[in-house]
């Protein structure tokens, strides 16, 4: 059985993914701020370095999979955290364990979001993230933004996830040529502890993003639905899948963007 590392597996989609991997008999290392096997803050440079170092110490023979799932929503109220955790933390961890994945011809799965298709992101920020990649400069820019404005947080969130999806696409060819696949999962709105207690207006906003597979049910995706696809993408059964942004949103993206077949 394989060895898989996963970020943000103490709750939500990550916890379900960990559970499924364990059920399949794999060893799973959870990297999270709390309750992890490796407890670090992936929004910080030091936290990322510590996680990468520990993974190398624990499994110098290599990893079968790296699942980069940790992230925060646009409503977290902390704009620097959105940038540092969602984009820079994810890219740093994936790159940091690339040599371990290469040793075992493993695969990497990154969690993005189906909001990347809904046009709320800022292309200038996406370009700064992908093309410049200077965390300090992006954080300086973010400092001037209004963190109390929910639409600003959402736009920044979408930008980080869009940049992440584009990074996956860009890096996928060379990684695959060296035996390491990388794909992304783009989940729709998922039922979590946070969504269970959200306000009526917030629920109405979520309901305005209909999930065709849940038609008439007024409910969100179950974390297991996302986790099952993540486990599939990380497995050898998906050996032909690389550089793919797989929407696991019950069809919301197809509903709103039916003409975008590529």
């Amino acid at each position, binding site marked *: 059985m394989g060895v898989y590392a996963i970020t943000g597996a103490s709750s939500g989609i990550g916890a379900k993914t960990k559970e499924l991997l364990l059920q399949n008999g794999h060893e799973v290392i959870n990297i999270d701020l709390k309750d992890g096997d490796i407890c670090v803050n992936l929004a910080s440079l030091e936290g990322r370095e510590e996680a990468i170092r520990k993974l190398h110490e624990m499994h110098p023979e290599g990893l079968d999979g790296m699942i980069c799932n940790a992230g925060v929503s646009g409503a977290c109220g902390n704009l620097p955290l959105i940038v540092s955790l969602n984009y820079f933390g994810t890219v740093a961890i994936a790159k940091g364990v690339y040599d371990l994945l290469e040793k075992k011809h493993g695969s990497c799965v990154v969690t993005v979001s189906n909001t990347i298709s809904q046009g709320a992101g800022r292309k200038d920020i996406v370009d700064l993230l992908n093309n410049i990649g200077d965390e300090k400069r992006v954080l300086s820019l973010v400092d001037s933004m209004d963190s109390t404005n929910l639409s600003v947080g959402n736009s920044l969130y979408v930008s980080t996830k869009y940049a992440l999806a584009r990074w996956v696409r860009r890096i996928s060819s060379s990684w695959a040529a060296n035996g390491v696949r990388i794909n992304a999962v783009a989940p729709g709105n998922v039922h979590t502890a946070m969504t269970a207690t959200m306000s009526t207006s917030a629920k*109405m*906003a979520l*309901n*305005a*993003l*209909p999930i*065709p597979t849940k*038609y008439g049910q007024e409910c969100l995706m179950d974390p297991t639905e996302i986790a099952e696809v993540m486990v599939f993408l990380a497995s050898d059964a998906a050996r032909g899948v690389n550089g793919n942004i797989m929407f696991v949103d019950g069809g919301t993206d197809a*509903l*709103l*963007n*039916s*003409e*975008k077949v590529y």
Partner: protein
Amino acid sequence: MKPIEKYIETMENKDFAGLAELFTKNAILSDYCSTTASQEEYHIYGKEAINMFFRNKFGFRRYSIMEAEVVNDTQAEFIANFGGYNIMAIATVREVDENGFIERLTVRPK
């Protein structure tokens, strides 16, 4: 009321559920105006999809119509607003089934 009149009424009221109920199960609603607003065309297949699609568009204020005028038994003109971008449009009910439900409706720039 004729189907085109009901269509205009539900669109003006942002009544996505009522709008969907005007269509047959396998109806097709095509809107070619969106390309003028730098968006992809809309081709929505099936009444449930029409319900969900306009729930989204109305909910996030990305689509509305104003100054509507029914011009004949099957057509109406209006200004379509795509998230702030206004386009003069003409909607045509192209096919209706024996029970008066819309099978096919197209919206094109006028």
